[in-house]
């Protein structure tokens, strides 16, 4: 391998498992030191939606699958956090399944948290108590009364009842009427928030968001609720949640919702505030660690950046649909890149809005992760929609050519002032005049500009219609023609110029072509004598129009073709068509 080969990609293909068969949702995988031995592993919640299969929790150590266990329900998110400061430090893995957060430690389940039930409307409660005691003929009436309650405040049991056909309703009610009525909202996304230290392995709290827009911050040790808040005043269904800061000091939780809102929740707030409203659906969101900028990927193939207050800083339209985002923190280069996974299997890396690198993978990525895996710090893990697990390692020597790029693409940050000349008296007078009559000057300028364009266009038309000045750059000869006379007798004057500075033209022949029914020429072949360098040879040909009057009318464009050939070569070195003016006998 040569040195140039090494520079082609900044990434090493460590592993690609086409048969992994992983189905992962966004944020459905994490990299964590789950065994506490410093060897970071990949934890994946493998979602299986088919009715006869169970979702699984899989742990990969390097390239090998080391643990595989079934999950009770379909997982929505995977998080990892250190629940305590006890040595040895072993992080817990939290999986949100339906209503529960399941905690695993050392690959064993050890704790479970269920989101609290929600209040039930009085009417619904009453209806279900009546179901217990009353007969079946009241059923339709009671079901109709349920319809008066807003649908989204009903329990899932009543919701299902309303969707059933009337004949199935009785069985359904019989089956469930003795069970306690409860209303829950499932967990849609989760993240972690560090509690009191920003060390990477300090204690952090799980943060859960439910479908109706409740946020729960949990105590990592006993899973009690430390803080509860709602996402927004309006209806908002969280889809992506990110937290930064420290729970005990100050924190910001940003929630992207299915409605395209981004809401902010800060310490002590019971209700989130809308920070921004995206124009379309939000695919994924990440928060830049240094300046808390919000990076949003939306359905319209756009990557946009907002300040923490919600004002748009930049947006970049990409060629493909974005499927996932990840932060690529590179401490040794003191920067953070944004990894953008796109449909079709390419991952682009952006440094703010500037494209720096790309990685291609076999298929559309469904989840992207960058971090420490095994002993290696800079590992990019991709799980694709078709279940391929792909692991790439960033080369130690990769520097992303930052020094070159920052100077080339950022004129605002130029340190060197441009070498401008000093302001002359003329310049000052001119600028004074410009300030006095700006409108007239602008109009004059525009007029002149239009005139210039018109002249240029005219000249172009003329040169295209005009046969004078046909040349051959390679042979350095030029032919120009002039037609004299009104007809039927014309004189054609041809100027053959030798543009070559040090070589004479020899052995040239000029051949004329025309329709013998229209024109008769004095010569059809003209042998050209030696033309010395830089001089012009002038030839004169008599042309006579021999056509009848009615034929002229039919064919107004009549031409004579001229070819220059060298020696016995059949290819002309120069060819020209001379348009002859029509013979106007009326004038004569």
């Amino acid at each position, binding site marked *: *391998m040569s*040195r140039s080969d*090494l520079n082609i990609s900044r990434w*090493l*293909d*460590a*592993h690609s498992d086409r048969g992994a068969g992983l189905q992962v949702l966004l944020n459905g995988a994490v990299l964590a030191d789950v065994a506490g031995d410093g060897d970071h592993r990949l934890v994946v919640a493998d979602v299986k939606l088919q009715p006869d299969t169970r979702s699984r929790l899989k742990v990969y150590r*390097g*390239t*090998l699958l080391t643990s595989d266990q079934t999950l009770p329900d379909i997982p929505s998110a995977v998080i990892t956090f250190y629940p305590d400061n006890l040595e040895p430090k072993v992080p817990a893995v939290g999986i949100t399944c339906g209503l529960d957060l399941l905690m695993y430690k050392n690959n064993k389940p050890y704790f479970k948290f269920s989101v609290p039930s929600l209040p039930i409307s009085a009417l619904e409660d009453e209806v279900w108590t009546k179901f217990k005691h009353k007969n079946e003929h009241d059923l339709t009436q009671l079901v109709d009364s349920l319809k008066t309650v807003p649908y989204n405040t009903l329990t899932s049991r009543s919701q299902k009842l309303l969707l059933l056909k009337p004949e199935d309703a009785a069985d359904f009610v019989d089956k469930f009427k003795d069970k306690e009525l409860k209303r829950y909202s499932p967990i849609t996304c989760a993240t972690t928030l560090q509690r009191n230290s920003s060390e990477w392995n300090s204690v952090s709290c799980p943060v859960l968001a439910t479908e109706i827009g409740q946020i729960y911050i949990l105590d990592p040790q006993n899973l009690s609720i430390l803080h509860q808040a709602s996402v927004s005043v309006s209806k908002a269904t969280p889809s992506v949640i990110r937290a930064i800061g420290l729970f005990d000091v100050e924190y910001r939780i940003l929630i992207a919702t299915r409605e395209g809102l981004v809401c902010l929740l800060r310490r002590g707030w019971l209700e989130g505030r809308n920070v921004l409203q995206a124009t379309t659906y939000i695919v994924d969101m990440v928060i830049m660690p240094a300046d808390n900028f919000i990076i949003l990927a939306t359905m319209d193939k756009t990557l946009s950046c907002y300040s923490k207050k919600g004002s748009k800083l930049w947006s970049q339209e990409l060629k493909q649909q974005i499927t996932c985002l990840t932060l690529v923190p590179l401490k*040794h280069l003191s920067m953070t890149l944004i990894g953008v996974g796109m449909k079709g299997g390419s991952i682009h890396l952006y440094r703010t809005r500037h494209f720096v690198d790309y990685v291609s993978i076999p298929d559309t990525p469904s989840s992207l992760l960058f971090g420490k*895996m*095994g*002993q*290696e*710090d*800079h*590992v990019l893990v991709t799980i694709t929609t078709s279940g391929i697990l792909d*692991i790439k*390692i960033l*080369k*130690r*020597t990769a520097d992303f050519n930052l020094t070159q790029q920052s100077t080339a693409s950022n004129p605002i940050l130029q340190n060197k002032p441009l070498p401008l000349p000093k302001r002359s008296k003329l310049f000052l007078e001119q600028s004074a005049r410009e300030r006095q009559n700006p409108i007239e000057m602008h109009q004059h300028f525009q007029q002149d500009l239009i005139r210039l364009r018109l002249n240029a266009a005219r000249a172009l038309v003329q040169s295209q219609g005009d046969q004078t000045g046909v040349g051959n750059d390679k042979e350095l000869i030029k032919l120009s023609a002039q037609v004299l006379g009104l007809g039927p007798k014309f004189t054609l004057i041809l100027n053959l110029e030798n543009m070559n500075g040090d070589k004479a033209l020899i052995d040239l022949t000029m051949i004329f072509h025309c329709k013998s029914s229209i024109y008769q020429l004095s010569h059809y072949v003209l042998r050209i004598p030696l033309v010395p360098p830089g001089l012009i040879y002038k030839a004169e040909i008599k042309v006579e129009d021999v056509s009848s009057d009615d034929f002229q009318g039919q064919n107004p464009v009549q031409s004579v073709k001229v070819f220059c050939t060298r020696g016995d070569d059949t290819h002309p070195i120069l060819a020209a068509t001379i348009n002859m003016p029509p013979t106007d006998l009326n004038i004569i």
Partner: protein
Amino acid sequence: MGLFQKLALFLGIRKKEVNVLVIGLNNSGKSTVINHFKNDEDKASDIVPTVGFSIERFQNQNLAFTAFDMSGHGKYRDLWEHYYKDCHGIIFVVDSSDRLRLVVVKDELDILLQHPDVCNRKIPVLFFANKMDCKDALSSVKIAAGLGMDKIMDKPWHISASNALTGEGLNEGVEWLTQQIREYIVNNKF
């Protein structure tokens, strides 16, 4: 070199001193390999990740080795190239159970072999396919193939599977290295 020293060297009274560079990725077992060759009283019972580098001395067959035990951590790998010039042999330790990072090892090896201080010298390279006791360890043949060692034509190289904790395979490798360095010195000095 003084006349007396030359004479002493010629007679084999004075030991020849050679420098070897011990490199490899972090957690591959470089310090543990070196620890094995130290005298019993100097041996460390607990090996911690090396920071920067450390210098160890040991002897083998009348050659006094000075081993530069380099740190294999990513941020210290830039240091390696500063020691290429003065070394007589290279020991490259590979963690044979770390399949994921075999590509990283290959990358580092390529960088090493293309370095101007190494590529033009016939410097012997000894590979230890360490941690052979691990159950998912790759064989030394597989590692040699994975690292593309068959393409190393201009340098003598040798790979031996080893277990630095028990010392298995280490002596065999170092004997090969001693032999090569002897030849190297003879060919270059006289």
